[in-house]
């Protein structure tokens, strides 16, 4: 029988990792488990800490408590059947993952969605970015002590979830995008709801900033904690707001524009201190930028179809399936045997609120992918945790994990 908690190798790594010196060492070492069930670890993350009194000498995170076998399942189902699974990757910002996956499959199959569908995808992507950052800021502030923030941010999320309910039928895990477009069109009521939300949201953002930005406890709790230099951040593979807080001006929406981001005017916030407070400010500024992007998209959105016209790859409309013969045959072939993209491998990345979400797909010409690898940003961001926690106190570990903002559904796949 195997013992699930066999920690010998982990403890060996932990004891070997002793490259910092502490002045006035208490000579009082203990090994403490900040276990998978903890109010402040943002999910099921286990961190084993080696402490001298209250100072952390070494920290070793352990993942795998939410490993659900995503990559193995992808090899056994068609590209269409996998769309609901991508929802549950970064479950705080659900539509962004759908958009990333749909773009990857469209790149592999060589089709392109119509312009209206791309604009709708941009709008829901940015609304998801707002949702993801609201959870990040709310839970992060709650961990540091400002409990009100969580209730305020979740109240704002409810308005966006009403919009999702109207657009896609579900308030949380929506599976809204399809290969070749989006599932259903955006009507006038939804547009009015989005505009109303955006107008009220700016006042709410002012409330949040009044509460936190010049709050002395918040700043003293976070300033200078978890500092990472630019070279280390790039070497360790950090992406997203964590990298932009270290001074690297890199955003996939600017560098490699996908959808129609090259037609929209927005700013990418960059701070250079590299500590937890800078990471918070990057996220707070990105909230305002997302509001600007959604407003511009709503003004520029063209009319037209929302699903591409590529019968061999895109599922036809249900009312055509029930009335016309050719569409019925295509529907049957696509659902049972899958789209058959050409042989080859691609990599496609989008800018998720947590970082760079990438899909690497290898196709052998059949309906099921031969291999799918999900490059999840939280997994790569957590690699930096070991280096960031050295020399800090236990309560700072909580602040650092909150500022890195990992989501375990993504990190464990």
């Amino acid at each position, binding site marked *: 029988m195997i013992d699930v*908690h066999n920690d010998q190798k982990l403890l060996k790594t932990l004891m070997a990792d002793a490259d910092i010196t502490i002045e006035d060492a208490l000579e009082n070492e203990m090994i403490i488990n900040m276990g998978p*069930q903890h109010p402040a670890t943002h999910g099921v993350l286990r961190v084993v800490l080696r402490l001298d009194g209250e100072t952390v000498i070494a920290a070793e995170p352990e993942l795998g408590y939410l490993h659900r076998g995503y990559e193995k399942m992808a090899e056994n189902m068609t590209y269409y059947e996998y769309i609901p699974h991508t929802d549950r990757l970064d479950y*705080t910002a659900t539509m962004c993952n759908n958009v990333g996956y749909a773009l990857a499959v469209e790149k592999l199959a060589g089709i392109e969605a119509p312009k209206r569908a791309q604009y709708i995808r941009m709008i829901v992507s940015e609304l998801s970015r707002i949702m993801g950052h609201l959870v990040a800021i709310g839970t992060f502030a709650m961990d540091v002590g400002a409990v009100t923030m969580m209730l305020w941010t979740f109240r704002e999320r409810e308005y966006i979830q009403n919009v999702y309910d109207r657009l896609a039928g579900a308030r949380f895990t929506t599976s809204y995008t399809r290969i070749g477009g989006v599932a259903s069109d955006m009507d006038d009521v939804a547009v009015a709801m989005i505009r109303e939300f955006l107008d009220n949201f700016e006042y709410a953002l002012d409330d949040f900033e009044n509460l936190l930005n010049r709050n002395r406890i918040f700043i003293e709790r976070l300033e200078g904690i978890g500092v990472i230099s630019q070279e280390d951040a790039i070497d360790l593979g950090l992406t997203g707001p964590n990298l932009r807080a270290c001074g690297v001006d890199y955003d996939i929406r600017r560098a490699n524009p996908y959808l129609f981001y090259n037609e929209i005017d927005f700013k990418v916030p960059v701070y250079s201190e590299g500590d937890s407070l800078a990471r918070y400010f990057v996220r707070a500024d990105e909230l305002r930028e997302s509001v600007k992007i959604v407003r511009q998209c709503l003004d520029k959105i063209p009319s037209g179809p929302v699903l591409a016209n590529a019968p061999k790859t895109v599922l036809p409309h249900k009312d055509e399936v029930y009335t016309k013969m050719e569409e019925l045959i295509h529907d049957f072939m696509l659902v049972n045997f899958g789209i058959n993209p050409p042989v080859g491998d691609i990599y496609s990345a989008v800018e998720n609120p947590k970082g760079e979400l990438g899909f690497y797909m290898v196709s052998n010409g059949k309906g099921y992918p031969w291999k799918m690898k999900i490059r999840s940003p939280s997994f790569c961001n957590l690699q930096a945790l070991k280096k960031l926690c050295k020399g800090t106190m236990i309560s700072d570990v909580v602040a650092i994990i909150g500022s890195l903002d990992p989501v375990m559904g993504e990190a464990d796949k």
Partner: protein
Amino acid sequence: MGLEAKLAGDGFITTTLDAVIAWARKSSVWPMPMGISCCAIEMMSAVDPKYDMSRFGSEVMRFTPRQCDLMIVAGTVTYKMSHVVRQIYDQMPDPKWVIAMGACTSSGGMYRSYPVVQGIDQFLPVDVYTAGCPPRPENLLNALIEIQKKIGNSKGRDFQDEKYSNAPKAPIG
């Protein structure tokens, strides 16, 4: 818990005592949120100002099992995590109830794969199952009300000592 359990029988005093104690227990169920994945976000939404859970007496979500009497398992349980969930369940004092929130805990959900436990009732006794992926917060509140009905019908002699004399002790730590 000890005294009224020993007063077995259906006399007037004991049934009134049972009713009062059951009413007190069901009006202040303190949940222990075992928030593992996506359902945890919907559980947090059930506590936010729109779907207020504190009007049912369950605002106090303590993360320590020693103070709770209802465990809401929210999220996919993997084999590696099942030992942790069972250990936390054993640390909760009696009487305790379990809500299996969502499809993943009820039956493995959409994850038919090697590391996912196909239903937590393989290692935990479950009282209420909730459907949905994730269930809407109103659905979770409905599950809470069902638990409250179940507690309201419980009698003191359900928790008699003889039933637990062979029970294993909860592990310390």
